[in-house]
């Protein structure tokens, strides 16, 4: 299981499971390296299918949302799929307020997210 600074990455079939390890994803000191690591993961697959697990994340900024939007766009350009999961109710509220809950596929648990990605949602 390769472990990176801000992420724990696992491969399951052709799905990349990514657990975000930071409790707070707020500013450039975290978002910069996170973007680099996530971009690398998107670029390494022809059709990236990814699950992003927010189980450790308690705080997020608008910059983190911007990073996710760019990541999502790139995954779609490559005809891949991205699901988010294990989002706390407080963080989910941020997605709802910004209407990004309508843009991202959000699953309750990691297991649900894997099923949803496999179904091409």
């Amino acid at each position, binding site marked *: 299981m390769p472990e990176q600074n801000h992420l724990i990455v696992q491969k399951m079939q052709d799905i990349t499971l990514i657990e975000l390890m930071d409790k707070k994803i707020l500013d450039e000191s975290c978002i910069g390296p996170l973007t680099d690591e996530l971009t690398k993961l998107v670029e390494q697959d022809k059709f990236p299918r990814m699950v992003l697990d927010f189980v450790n994340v308690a705080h997020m900024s608008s910059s983190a949302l911007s990073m996710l939007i760019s990541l999502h766009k790139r995954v779609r350009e490559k005809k891949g799929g991205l699901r988010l999961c294990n989002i706390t109710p407080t963080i989910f509220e941020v997605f709802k307020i*910004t209407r990004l809950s309508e843009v991202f596929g959000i699953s309750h648990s990691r297991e649900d997210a894997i099923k949803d990605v496999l179904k091409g949602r």
Partner: protein
Amino acid sequence: MYQQWTIPTDLKTGRELAEDILHHVRVQGYDQDVCFAIRLALEEAIVNAIKHGNGCDPLKKISISAYVGTDKTDITIADEGAGFNPQNVPDPTADENLEKPGGRGLMLMRAYMDQVLFNARGNEIRIIKNGPVQAQQ
């Protein structure tokens, strides 16, 4: 608690100061959701002042004052930039802007705080959240 600071245009210093203010907020008995809201707005305001206000110029300063009481938390953040007109910031929840990366900081501050005010020049923001005592009234 009322305190004023002048800090350099530096994210690390800004983050440390935000932590310091949030410590006082927690001590005053604000619940977790309100602490989350104040943290989010404060972080957004400081990052805006550093990046958009002072343009990350290390020669410029940021002035912050904070009142934290059981009645309210009232924080003012001023940068040395030219200022902006908050009315001109596009609505990030409009269909055409939904997938544009930027522009959500201000709307999140407005959503999470009870009041968000600007000075006329637009280089100073005041964010206010009602405290636990006021909330019980």
